């Protein structure tokens, strides 16, 4: 039985290789070999995983080969600008406009330089954590302490999805305690391990992390130097609601909901609570044939209607979130303008 399955597996690989050579011309405007470049250089990260899931479904639906290349943001944008025939498209997340808002090198306004395509999923895991033994119980205590003049150091990766939550907290302090926002200090770090390390070294009071990477740390015994606690998940309440009830690890969906607004509130403008969902979406060359975009919208509509992809996404703790191009573009444009207001308020 096992031998057979191996044989099948190998045969499938070889066949997959040959199939491309002899693939019958499929009924699609896309070339037989579609390349999706992503804005991340990691083949282990969430961008790659989300793209791989969608790529597999698309390959089957359109009967073409789809390949995901982790070239990184700069190279991906550059390729996208150059190739307009639809043989290369891009998948990335909110970083594509946040990088622009934060003025990072290599980022331009994606709504002007590219076409925004359909959204496919959300990574709901963006989280802020304190050390288990931290004197601060919740985010409100941290922000109050800050307003009272204590420096609160937050470990983040600057210039993007990791910084937006920090900017939101700073903005909330600015609104509720004008002039005190300077007490929230960024500790600029790189990878998740660097941010964790900043906490272990006692250089940060609060770190940006994720449900996926940090959940086990929250279950360590209190006397462990590495133990942490969640204080805030930036996701929308309704996003977490859609996760599988088991949640992540031993932390159930119910547990996770405690850390989402309205239970934890960071005000955006004095009335509404700030939320941030990391949403994955396609980007196209500005001059790409609209018929191709329509075809992709259509294919994804069918894929999501079949319902299988949602299960795959949820198993990996991603939230299905399909919006066709037009809807996605309007939605993301609005999202960007809200965050632009926050970032502008802090820099002026």
């Amino acid at each position, binding site marked *: 039985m096992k031998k057979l399955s191996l044989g099948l597996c190998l045969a*499938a690989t070889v066949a997959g290789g040959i199939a491309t050579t002899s693939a019958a011309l499929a009924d699609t405007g896309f070339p037989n070999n579609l390349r999706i470049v992503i804005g991340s250089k990691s083949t282990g990260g969430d961008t790659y995983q989300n793209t791989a899931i969608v790529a597999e479904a698309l390959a089957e639906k359109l009967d073409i080969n789809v390949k995901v290349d*982790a070239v*990184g943001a*700069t190279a991906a944008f550059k390729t996208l600008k150059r190739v307009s025939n639809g043989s290369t498209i891009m998948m990335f997340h909110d970083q594509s406009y946040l990088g622009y808002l934060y003025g990072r*090198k290599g980022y331009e306004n994606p709504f002007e330089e590219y076409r925004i395509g359909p959204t496919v999923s959300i990574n709901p895991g963006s989280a802020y954590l304190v050390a288990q033994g931290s004197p601060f119980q919740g985010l409100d205590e941290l922000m109050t302490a800050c307003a009272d003049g204590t420096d609160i150091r937050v470990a983040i990766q600057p210039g993007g999805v990791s910084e937006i939550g920090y900017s939101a907290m700073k903005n909330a302090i600015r609104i509720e305690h004008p002039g005190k926002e300077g007490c929230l200090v960024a500790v600029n770090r*790189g990878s*998740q*391990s660097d941010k*964790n390390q900043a906490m272990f070294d006692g250089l940060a009071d609060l770190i940006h992390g994720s449900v996926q990477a940090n959940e086990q740390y929250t279950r360590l015994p209190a006397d462990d130097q590495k133990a942490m606690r969640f204080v805030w998940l930036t996701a929308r309440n309704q996003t977490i609601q859609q996760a599988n009830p088991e949640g992540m*690890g031993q932390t159930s969906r119910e547990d996770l909901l405690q850390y989402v607004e309205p239970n934890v509130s960071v005000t955006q403008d004095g009335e509404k609570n700030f939320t941030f969902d990391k949403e994955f979406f396609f980007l196209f060359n500005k001059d790409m044939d609209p018929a191709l975009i329509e075809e992709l919208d259509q294919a994804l509509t069918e894929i999501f209607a079949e319902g299988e992809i949602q299960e795959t996404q949820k198993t990996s703790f991603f939230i299905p979130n399909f919006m066709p191009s037009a809807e996605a573009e309007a939605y993301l444009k609005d999202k960007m303008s809200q965050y632009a207001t926050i970032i502008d308020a802090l820099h002026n």
Partner: protein
Amino acid sequence: MDVLSALDPLFFVLISAGAAIGIVFGAIPGMTATMAIAVCLPLTYALDLNHGLALLLGLYVGGISGGLVPAILLNIPGTPSSITTTFDGYPMCQRGEGERALKIGVVSSLFGGLFSAAVLFLFAPVLSDFAIKFSYVEKFLIIFLALTVIASLSRNLLMGLFSGLIGVWLALIGTYDVSVGGNGDTRLMTEAMEPYLSEGFSLLPVLIGLFGVAAILKEAEQGIRENTEGMRITLEKGARFSLGVFRNQGVNLVRSGVIGTFIGMLPGVGGSAASVLSYTQQKNFSKAPEKMGTGVPEGVVASESANNGLTGGALVPLLSLGIPGDSTTAVMIGAFTLQGVQVGPLFIGENLETWNTMMVALVFANLVMFAIMFFAIKYVARVVMVPKYLLYPIIMIMCVVGAYAINYGVMFDVWTLLLFGLGGYLAGKVGIEIAPLVIGFILGGQAEVYFVKSLESFGTYTIFFTKSPIAMVLWGLIVLSIAFSVYNLVKASRRKTQEGGA
């Protein structure tokens, strides 16, 4: 008992297939274990977790090990961590001892791999608690310690240090990357260069350019004289491999294995530092340090047992902190997530069965790697008999493949090859030394981040001395290492003047 049920024939077949594919990737200059894993990752979707991991671990071990083949036979490091293997492996090969060098390398790799697997199995949680004691300050000192090898590798101290600095400078070109905590601004370039250089020069294209392309250009200048007949004769004259080589290498093996495993454990410090560091230490403690770099087995032993020591080492933070120790294990995190398994400080306790099967897979992968390589070597070593007019074009296209594929399709990386090929060729003419330059280039980026971030956090230079007892111990090692290399240099130059006088 559950463990046994996971160990079906397919499990072992997958490890073997993984190791074989991994070796091929490792042996192609510019293709790495990371790439092997990324390429085969989609295959694991169809497998369950244990089988998927079997394939990935086979690829990992094979990929890390395969790098020694081109390092020894062609003087091109197949992976960055086999850079120090070229220092002694290639001179051995030129003397007709290619097969011997390869076998020494493979045996050392096996030792390093098994040693680190044992360490991983026995001490993972304890070690990860130790590893997090290393903050930026201590990591900077480790990099600094590895950089001291420049002093002992240089033929001329002044030019060697200068070359090392050039290497560091080249590494800084590009963005101070936010993914390591930088501010994302570019430096050392003009606006016009930004579209190409904003990510800086990629490590592997630079390495294969400096080693592979530069060597071909140098040969072209000399007119590509064929010497297969001469090679045949030296090949027959060359010393044969025997396990006796390892008689005096026990300390070296263990020390290098420890260094490899330990460096592998430190997230972010990564592979190349491990073999560089263990090569430095071997040179410092060697009975005949002046011979290192001229083709002695101990150099190959130090380098290869350290870089395979990485495999177990890098799995320590992955499995006990949920943090990858190097870029290859970073891809593995993806495999875990796709199977719905979470890695983190509680992974081992919550997934005992997976943990045990992984250990079996790791050990078996090392054995398979050894079996495949040890017996294939006899044929692979014949590469030196291939006439240059056939071999060099092959090397060129393989370099292109590696360079283009390393970042999943960036043409600038291919141009980097030629740029550094030409640069390396010209540098040799004006006395700039390639080995120190490369080491500076490999370690420069990390040196910057750890140095600048330490100062950013603590605001004083004294922190490097006072941070922790670990820092003080590291300073002790640095001082020793510099003292040793100065002592050796003085001894060597004194001998030279004596010989000149006689």
